[in-house]
């Protein structure tokens, strides 16, 4: 018998221990029960998301079409060219993660097909880490699905306390949570324990508290697109530390509380309203003028 009423990470951790299962297994059983589906049907939905993520990466790697506003869209190509000339300092997995994250985010703003995981603005983070690590470390599709379920379960529990929306809690709740989800997914793929997974989430989230949402011209482009590769790499840092059994001194549920409180305290001008921060810089205002003239 598996516990269905799981609203905090502590509950999740305990329930997994009692049933002696991984996070993904508990999440998948719970989801099947609540949605009146079989576990295989649940996995099938997850698989469709995984495939859509891979398709978006593929399309994004092969395009340099600009966004509707014309502000972004050609950076993934630039990055790939640079890596062809000169390999990345941190090796091929780094190259893939950063390129895949940009590919997906650029695909998003040229109205391509993406998975809003957890949101459209942060859509490059989970896929880039999942697919790049999956490819380079020979992770089977079955295990990639396990990792995506793990990521989804992490996002779900955070979202029980705070809506994953820039307008509600700033970018810490979008790209920040995406990065935390990815950190957990990497740990899952590399054979981390439940404890290590949750520590990776804690470490990733803790180091992004306070991240504001100040998109230039009110569009999901600047800073969103380039923020995706940054926070994808951030996720890997968290996973590496956690896999070394480094623990977050502050428990994960308390970090989520801090995130919620920080979101509440954050000025509304920095929560997707484009009234402060980057959105009100001199250059942003100039861009706004030239765009709205059209």
């Amino acid at each position, binding site marked *: 018998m598996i516990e*269905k*009423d799981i*609203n905090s990470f502590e509950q999740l951790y305990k329930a997994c221990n009692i049933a002696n299962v991984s996070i993904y297994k508990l*999440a998948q059983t719970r*989801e099947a029960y*609540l*949605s009146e589906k079989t576990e295989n049907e*649940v996995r099938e*939905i*997850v698989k*469709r*998301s995984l495939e*859509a993520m891979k398709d978006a990466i593929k399309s994004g790697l092969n395009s340099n079409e600009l*966004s*509707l*506003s014309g502000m972004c869209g050609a950076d993934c190509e630039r990055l790939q060219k640079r890596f062809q000339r000169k390999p990345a300092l941190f090796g091929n997995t780094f190259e893939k993660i950063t390129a895949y994250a940009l590919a997906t985010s650029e*695909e*998003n*703003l*040229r*109205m*391509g*097909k*993406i*998975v*809003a*995981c*957890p*949101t*459209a*603005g942060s*859509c490059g983070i*989970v896929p880039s880490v999942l697919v790049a690590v999956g490819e380079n470390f020979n992770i089977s599709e079955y295990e990639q699905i396990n990792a*995506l*379920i793990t*990521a*989804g*379960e992490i*996002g*779900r529990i955070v*979202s*029980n306390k705070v*809506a*994953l*929306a820039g*307008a509600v809690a700033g970018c810490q709740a979008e790209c920040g949570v995406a990065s935390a*989800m990815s950190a957990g997914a990497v740990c899952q793929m590399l054979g981390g324990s439940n404890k290590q997974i949750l520590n990776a989430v804690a470490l990733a989230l803790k180091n992004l508290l306070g991240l504001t949402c100040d998109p230039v*011209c*009110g*569009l*999901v*482009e600047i800073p969103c697109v380039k923020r995706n590769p940054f926070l994808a790499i951030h996720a890997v840092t968290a996973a590496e530390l956690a896999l070394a059994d480094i623990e977050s001194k502050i428990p994960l549920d308390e970090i989520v509380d801090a995130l919620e409180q920080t979101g509440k305290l954050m000025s509304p001008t920095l929560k997707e309203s484009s009234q402060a921060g980057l959105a009100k810089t001199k250059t942003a205002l100039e861009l706004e003028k030239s*765009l709205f003239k*059209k």
Partner: protein
Amino acid sequence: MAQSSFIDIITPIMVGPSSSHTAGAVRLGLLARNVYDASPHKVTFRLYNSYAQTGFGHGTDKGLLAGVLGFAVDDKRIRHIFEQPEAKQIAYEFQYLEDFNRHPNAVDFIFEGDLNMFVAGDSVGAGEVVIRKINEFSVKFTGKFNTLLLVYRDVPGMISRVTKVIQEKNINIASLHCDRYAKGEEASMCICVDGELDEEILKLIEGIENLYLVRYVRKLEH
């Protein structure tokens, strides 16, 4: 407390760039189309506030039109919707307005054709949408269930009369939402059902007295 689902976090698959301004626009268009439930000759879209200001960069206009034409949120053709054959078969127009009494992402749909109809709704975030008005009547529903919408004169016993017809056919009512504006005047009822209402039930309901509007709106697939 309703239990949350991790599937919601790792979906939907959609065309970008924005859940509220693109996917939400498509879904609002789809739901308005289900409300209208006929082929319009012309549709006028009135976009308000944030939809009017940042819509161009989010493809909000494209999304709304695509929805009204029946395209799904993950249809790659939405990017080039104006060039699609479906779009060439109807007339459409976009108007951009400011009205801070309305939701930041509010839209009016003005359908013209064999039937003329006004539908207003909001994209309320994360792709979720709400229809607020049909013609001059206030309503409230989200497209998550098949919904029977009734606007009627506020006379006693209406709710039990309607629900009796539905329950006699063994159809489960998932939720019932009623609203009244002034006693004795217009009231509205949104009945969400599990499963389908067939022609026969709808006929029976249409036969009830004091109804101004009866509309059966199908749920959205995504």
